């Protein structure tokens, strides 16, 4: 049985805005699922409906087989949730907040205390333990909020931009925990823009735009969108006219996509440019998730139209 099943969810707000336009997706136990999309794409609306804060206009949402549109209380009991907005709790200390939320999530006093210590240790929050939430740095506050989300066991974890403001070292700790939740069998729905980091942990992802899923699959399968393409990142001295096989990447001045068959010609051209002293550095590799994401959501460019039609097909 899927941990989460979203079936053709449509959400139209009272002011007429169509925020979700027929979204369907499912998460299996142990799966880390990325939900990507530009601001206003409908991600937060979808999450609000999973948690029972919003009611779908039509469609169904099942958590562990239970219809949470009818029983939103079950969703809140079953889902560990980290909202995108910073949890502001004024003068409550970091350890007090984690402990209190643990108690509110049903842990016994002893279990809540043990779990609080475990999370403070795992996320390296010791130095902030007795600091008021309002006085902590943005990153520490984010981690404390993350700790409150995962303080009690849940088989569905929904994290909305978990690494905002978090320093690189602790970010790694957080991602490792997310991966560990997946290994332990929880399904994780991850809403993020931080594709470069999340890519290593995501099993599947959906790109959502204008309320619809425009692309879905594993990172590897989504790469097939531009599978015959390679990416070139170029650092030049004074700018130069690119080789005819190189197509500029939308929104970038120094990145190009080119067909694998053009690799010998491009390599030869690069060698010549480097010998002439025009090229300082270059890197060639497969397109990243970021590239795929940009290609799918950036409208009106030839490479996008191409990518989109391939994805939809």
């Amino acid at each position, binding site marked *: 049985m899927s941990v989460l099943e979203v079936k053709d969810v449509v959400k139209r707000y009272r002011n007429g805005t169509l925020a979700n336009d027929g979204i369907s997706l499912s998460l299996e136990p142990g799966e880390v699922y990325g939900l990507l999309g530009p601001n206003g794409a409908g991600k937060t609306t979808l999450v609000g409906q999973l948690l029972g804060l*919003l009611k779908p206009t039509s469609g169904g949402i099942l958590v562990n087989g239970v219809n949470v549109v009818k029983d939103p209380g079950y969703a809140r009991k079953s889902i560990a949730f980290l909202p995108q907005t910073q949890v502001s709790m004024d003068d409550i200390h970091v350890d007090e907040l984690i402990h209190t939320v643990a108690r509110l999530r049903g842990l016994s006093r002893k279990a809540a205390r043990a779990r609080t210590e475990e999370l403070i240790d795992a996320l390296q929050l010791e130095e902030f333990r007795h600091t008021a939430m309002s006085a902590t740095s943005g990153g520490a506050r984010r981690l404390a909020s993350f700790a409150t989300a995962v303080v009690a066991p849940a088989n569905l974890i929904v994290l909305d931009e978990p690494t905002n403001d978090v320093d690189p070292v602790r970010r790694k700790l957080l991602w490792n925990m997310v991966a560990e939740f997946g290994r332990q069998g929880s399904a994780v729905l991850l809403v993020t823009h931080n594709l470069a980091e999340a890519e290593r942990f995501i099993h599947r992802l959906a790109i959502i735009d204008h309320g619809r899923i425009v692309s879905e699959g594993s990172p590897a399968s989504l790469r097939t969108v531009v599978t015959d393409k390679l990416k070139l990142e170029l650092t030049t001295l004074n700018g130069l006219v690119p080789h005819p096989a190189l197509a500029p990447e939308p929104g970038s001045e120094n990145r190009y996509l080119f067909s694998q068959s053009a690799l010998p010609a491009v390599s030869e051209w690069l060698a010549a440019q480097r010998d002439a002293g025009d090229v300082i550095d270059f890197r060639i590799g497969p397109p990243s998730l970021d590239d795929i994401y940009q290609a799918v959501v950036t409208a009106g460019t030839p490479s996008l139209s191409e990518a989109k039609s391939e994805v939809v097909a």
Partner: protein
Amino acid sequence: MKPLRDYYHLTKMQFLALRGAFVIISVVNVGFIAGFVYGFGFLFGDVSEATALYITVGSATNALIVGGLVMLPQFLAQAKADGRLDYIRSLPVSREAYLLANITVIAGIVMPGIALALVAGWMRYGISFDISPLVLVVIPLAALSCAGFGVAVAILSPKMQLTNAITQLFIFYAIFVSPVMMPEDNLPSALQAISKLLPPGYAADAMRATLTDLPNTHLGQSLIAMVAFTVLSLAAASTVVRRRG
């Protein structure tokens, strides 16, 4: 019982979150209420015993009105604006427990103001009180009827700025144009009619009935009205806070 446990933990959470400001807000509130008692006498020159009782008990009632109709809606409006309300709503906790936790914290802030108002009245005007044990029922009911109304305002109001503006209006209303600090007969009939639709007048009447021997109080009627305000406004707030957009 889960809702009771939720109430306990949420109240504790609210107290801890406010720990830095709690004493300051309480002291300011006490000063505000004692200032009413002390300062209003100057408006009247020679203050009769009855007027002194109106000023003193009215100021004590104002402590509850400020808590329920000003502080509470402002706290909730802030929680709504900074996402805290949605965060709490996403937790597996009783929403009513959260509302009651907020009411409890505010009550903790304003309760000293009631006692201090009476002490200030005794010191300033040399008045004495005729205290009935029923005041122990009246105070929580007066607090809840104002708080229920305040919660409903905060939850229904679409913007924090609007909530804050409305709450300022409540203070003006309670002090100058409602039968809280003065006898109902002093007001024109239109204001008397309006006072029947809002909780402060009933709260003040019940406080006078249980703290003084002033005539023309209607304890039974005021108790029924306060129960009705409490039940209706908390039911409305509970429905709204449960509503899914």
